[in-house]
């Protein structure tokens, strides 16, 4: 078990700057996730940690020890590959015990360890199957077990759930988290699925174009994003562009097409700056009480029933579009809102951030 420190790590492939100056501390025994859109350099960063790619600048330390010049087979890391990379010609138990085989452990001891790990991943008795005889989720777990067999200090997982269907993916989130708790190994996890990141991780680093924008636990990331990109990439958000007209100790006032809005400001904001106000769909209230600071008139354009909740699409003055969600049980009798409504949201639930690129772009 060991902490991992990335210290100004950059990776270049010729003209492509795949990873830019990443400095992150991953605590010992943490479940740490790198989250970012496709092509932002997540895999490259992970390959740098596991030793397949040499950083062109910066240093990687595992358990305090500098890894520069140490090959992948000598690092205390184990990688669960994006495509799993199980060995098709070996039965499951030999796959799992491969790390022991190459260390010269005897056959009986290998088998024993493999059976223990099969127990850990809740697949006892599957040792003599071939990999192609397993289901997707089982293969997934075998890949994790194989990586754990070497007793690595750090387990690296590269979008291990992306090949699974939705239900299985959600199930495996819990499994992985449970396995991590049981073995206590540091997990570094990669995904472009923000739901996955929020559900599993102790800490999440959001990446964009090779750089890390923010490192925080899931709640902070969701409630207090530091940049427009993070606010729009992590979870769903409504955006009101505008200009900061006033700042006081707790709140900023932003002039938008929907009127003056009050929101919690980012510390970088100054009066006169272009700003974006972000509000989560679930923070929007229908027919809000008088103490809700931000109120506006809207027209219901459409609404969609999603089982546990309704998603309501609203149009505001000045061509603004807003999405709100209402829990099914709290919605109106027929569940649908129609026509003109008044909506509002509390200043505590809104954030004002400096203008910047959004995730959709």
């Amino acid at each position, binding site marked *: 078990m060991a902490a991992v420190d990335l210290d100004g790590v950059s990776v*270049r*492939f010729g003209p492509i700057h795949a990873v830019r100056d990443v400095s992150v501390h991953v605590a010992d025994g943490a479940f740490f996730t790198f989250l970012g859109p496709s092509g932002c350099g997540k895999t490259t960063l992970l390959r740098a940690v596991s030793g*397949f790619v*040499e950083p*062109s600048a910066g240093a990687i330390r595992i358990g305090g020890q500098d890894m520069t010049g140490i*090959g*992948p087979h000598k690092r205390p890391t184990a990688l669960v590959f994006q495509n799993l990379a199980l060995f098709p010609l070996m039965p499951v138990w030999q796959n799992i015990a491969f790390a022991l085989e190459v260390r010269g452990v005897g056959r009986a001891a290998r088998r024993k360890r493999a059976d223990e790990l099969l127990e850990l991943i809740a697949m006892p008795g599957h040792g003599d199957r071939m990999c192609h005889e397993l289901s997707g989720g089982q293969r997934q777990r075998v890949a994790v077990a194989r990586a754990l067999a070497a007793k690595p200090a750090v387990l690296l997982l590269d979008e291990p759930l992306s090949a699974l269907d939705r239900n299985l993916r959600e199930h495996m989130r819990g499994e992985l988290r449970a396995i991590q708790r049981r073995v206590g190994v540091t997990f570094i996890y990669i995904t472009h699925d923000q739901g996955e990141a929020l559900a599993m991780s102790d800490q999440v680093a959001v990446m964009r174009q090779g750089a890390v924008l923010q490192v925080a636990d899931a709640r902070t990331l969701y409630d207090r994003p530091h940049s427009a990109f993070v606010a729009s990439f992590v979870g769903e958000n409504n955006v009101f562009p505008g200009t900061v007209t006033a700042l006081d100790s707790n709140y900023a006032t932003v002039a938008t097409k929907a009127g003056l809005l009050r929101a919690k400001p980012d510390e970088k904001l100054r009066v006169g700056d272009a700003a974006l106000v972000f509000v989560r769909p679930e923070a929007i209230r229908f027919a809000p009480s008088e103490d809700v600071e931000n109120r506006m008139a809207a027209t219901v354009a459409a609404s969609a029933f999603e089982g546990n909740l309704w998603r309501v699409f609203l149009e505001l003055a000045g061509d603004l579009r807003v999405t709100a969600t209402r829990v099914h049980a709290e919605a109106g009798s027929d569940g649908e809102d129609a026509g003109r409504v008044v909506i509002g949201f509390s200043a505590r639930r809104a954030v004002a951030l400096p203008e910047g690129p959004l995730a959709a772009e």
Partner: protein
Amino acid sequence: MNSGPATPPGTFAWPRAFFARYGAGLGASVLVLVGFWILALVLVPQLAMADFSFRPNLPPTEQGGPRDVYTLEHYEYLVRGGAGGEGEYNTVDLAVLGRTLLAALFVAAVDLAICYPIAFLLAQSAHGGFARLMMVLLVVPFWLNEILRAFAFRILFGTSGLVNDVLLGVGAVEEPMDFFRDNVALYSGLTYAFVLLMVFPLYNALEHLDKSQIEAARDMGASWLRVHWRVVIPFAKPGISSGCAMVFMLSAGALATPQILGGPSSLWFTQIIYQWFNTGNNWPRGSAYAIALLISALVLVLVAMRVFKVRLRDLGK
């Protein structure tokens, strides 16, 4: 494949990545084996032969001696003929060279013509048992080597062979035909010898052709001929070119089949080379002739590739 330790910047990046992947022992073995092959078996022997072809024909004791100087005499001999042939051309050998290359082109063209329908059928319309039967029937003759196949043609085309028996029997001819003198036997034998080398590249290329492309073209009202000309042949171009290049090179370089089936008055160029080595005892001249054959055949292939706009990497697939 974007695997492997990505090339780190700086000097010696490649060897480092190479050894990082294979380790010292395995990496060194790979390099030694490849080096031995490419240098000691492929490149240097060709260069040695080229060098040798510029030397006079000397007895072993005099090689490396004062008379062992560079000379063009062997190439001159090929072009001008022997001593006293001033201002004239060695029409005999040059004609043989020309005829060999032309005949090899002819063989390649005939093979293409007869193998294309078969390969198309095999790749696009034959299924299951029929396809497998065709495959087996195609391959079986090539379990025998070139000489035995040529031998079969000798039996077939002999004066009292089956072909003449049949021709005489139906009264098509009065006298037995001499298929050897007219090179009929030779060309049939060579065409036969390389059928498989033509079918397989064609088949490989055509196999990947999506049937719906043909159907789409048919649907738009194209005739069968047009479908082949505009859709199938362009698609199969890599296969066609590698098949033709191989058949051409191999028939130009064939030795056994011409030795066995060639007519009494027509030599194949390889037979002249063989004679310089064996009975003529003039190795440098044999080398010079070999180089002349190699270069003229390669030039023909390269010119053909230019003309038909084929890239090198399409060959050998």
